């Protein structure tokens, strides 16, 4: 236990072990290159993690490897167990089975304060009795960092999150976005091996959320910080992550980068969560879109379908080769989603969603128009 690498390496601490040196901010990027990729790609390992509350299982047999410096998002609907999984990694919730490994060290049985893991909570969890400075300094005080160094490191971290001028305010004097940045600074100042973030942006309003996403990602990349981020917001996940783990009903349904998850869902649940996929059975796929497959389900993203008005050219001039034969239908609904227009087209009694870029009024097709629907057959996904 005592040999557990501390999250901090301080000058007056015992001589730094190689592990602790690696955790230091300045050496992170070097070590990314220096260390063999196999160890780095398994910086955080989750092995068979299971948790139940009473008779209901929260998550079951979770397996995952996360690389050093990677930004991974746990994406899923509320109640899918993602927050509990995060708390289990932090040591705030005990697991029933499985192991958590960081940098080759099993930490499953360590209490939270010995894990060297930082966490940012949805509602900030700032200490209301302390100033911003004291909040950020708290962890350093707990780790017995001498006060001169403490001062310096808090100042550095506060300027990293652009709050150096607010150091002597109390949390209640700050806006939501500022509070969350204090919470971030409070975790960062300890140079945690892993940073966990539990829906950190969902209590904020849209504009600030947008700004913080970018700031967060920049800081994470700058520090090469291994980060596990929880959200239920698909757009947020796609924007920020190196990889996304899509969770549902206590399992990780699919892992991959945003591109893979979005364009190549491996199951109907993933397809259902990631977008307004058109789900067809093999017979419908064949008769409607001319796609022949020996599969139970074929799914098309709405932007993989194209409309051609009966009198006109295809509505998307960028369209290329591999279009299917198409079928006739009627536009029953047209909704403007911003830069995209979503049509609902009824073809032989089946409703298809078709997304088209909103190029301008003259490209718009009216409701009730007769159209042909073609599919880009390359983009079909068989489930």
């Amino acid at each position: 236990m005592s040999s557990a690498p501390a999250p901090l390496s301080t000058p007056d601490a015992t001589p730094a072990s190689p592990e602790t040196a690696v955790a230091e901010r300045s050496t992170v990027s070097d070590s990314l290159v220096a260390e063999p990729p196999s160890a780095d790609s398994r910086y955080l390992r989750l092995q068979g993690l299971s948790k139940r509350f009473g008779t209901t299982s929260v998550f079951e047999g979770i397996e995952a490897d996360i690389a050093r410096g990677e930004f991974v998002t746990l994406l899923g609907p509320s109640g899918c167990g993602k927050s509990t999984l995060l708390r289990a990694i932090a040591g705030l919730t005990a697991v029933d089975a499985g192991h958590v490994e960081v940098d080759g060290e099993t930490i499953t049985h360590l209490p939270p304060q010995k894990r060297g893991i930082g966490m940012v909570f949805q509602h900030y969890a700032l200490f209301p009795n302390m100033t911003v400075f004291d909040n950020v300094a708290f962890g350093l005080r707990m780790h017995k960092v001498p006060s001169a160094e403490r001062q310096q490191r808090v100042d550095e971290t506060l300027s990293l999150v652009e709050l150096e001028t607010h150091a002597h305010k109390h949390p209640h004097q700050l806006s939501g976005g500022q509070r969350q940045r204090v919470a971030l600074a409070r975790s960062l100042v300890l140079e945690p091996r892993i940073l966990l973030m539990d829906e950190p942006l969902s209590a904020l309003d849209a504009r600030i959320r947008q700004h913080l996403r970018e700031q967060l990602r920049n800081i994470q990349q700058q520090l090469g910080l291994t980060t596990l981020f929880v959200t239920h917001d698909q757009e947020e996940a796609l924007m920020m992550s190196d990889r996304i783990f899509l969770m549902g009903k206590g399992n990780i349904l699919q892992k991959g980068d945003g591109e893979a998850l979005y364009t190549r869902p491996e199951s109907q649940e993933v397809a259902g969560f990631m977008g307004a996929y058109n789900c067809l059975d093999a017979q419908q796929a064949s008769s409607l879109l001319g796609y022949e497959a020996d599969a139970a389900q074929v799914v098309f993203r709405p932007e993989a379908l194209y409309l051609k008005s009966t009198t006109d050219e295809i509505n998307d001039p960028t369209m290329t080769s591999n279009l299917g034969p198409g079928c006739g239908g009627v536009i029953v609904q047209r909704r403007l989603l911003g830069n995209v227009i979503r049509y609902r087209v009824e073809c032989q009694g089946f409703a298809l969603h078709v997304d088209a870029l909103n190029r301008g009024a003259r490209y718009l097709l009216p409701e009730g128009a007769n159209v042909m629907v073609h599919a880009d057959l390359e983009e079909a996904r068989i489930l």
Partner: protein
Amino acid sequence: MTARRFISPAILCVVPFFVVFAAFQLAPLVFVAINAFRVGDGWGLAHFQEIIASAFYRQAMWRTLEIAIVSSLVGIVIAVLTCYSLTRLGGRWRRLLIAFTNMTSNFAGVPLAFAFIILLGANGALTLALQRIGLFEDFSLYSRSGLMIIYTWFQVPLGVLLLLPAFGALRAEWRESASLLGAGRHDYWRYIGLPVLWPSIAGTLTILLANAVGTYATVFALVGNNYNLMTIRIANLVAGDLFLQPELASALSLLLVGLLATITLVQQRLLRRSHHVTDH
């Protein structure tokens, strides 16, 4: 397990409290329950039979029930009206009056009895004033009606304080959406306000009843042992001037606790039935 590391010291922290609570709250009750059945060197129901057979103790029970029920019912009606009035009043007056209610709820027992003697005693200011205009000619504070007044007086602030949160939970939006749906004031209270308040009113009524049944200090300070109530009889049997009968006191105490338990059960039954009614 991470959790187990903290369990043992944590449990140690709560042990002292439970020891004190058990010794000074639970043990006395258990002791009373056991002692009530102790007859001489053996066990039996002799004390209960004695109480039932005695017109004196039957009167004590009857009067306890009577004063508790009357003062609680009158008290809860006034409390409900007062709460309604408070929620309608402007902020500053409301805060002031709530603070005042808080103060009066702490004004009980001996000081309260004394204040009533000053006000409504034989030479009390209000007694004299009312007699001058021809009212209250044969009123006595030390009689049943006098006790009713003083009981009601201390029930009202308690009722108000217990009911206020429930009134606070009545959302303005409910009233607004009810009125948008075509409900008048009467309909609002009939279908939304009172059904929502009803559990709190029933619960508060129970507490008022229990409070009245258990009252001792105010009566004792006012009339000593001269008004026949269960609490007065019990105290007199363990700390009176005559010979002491702790076992009989225990039996009477057990009856008193049984009475309180019955009130609670009736309240819960009532509450359950009310939910069936509002379901329709």
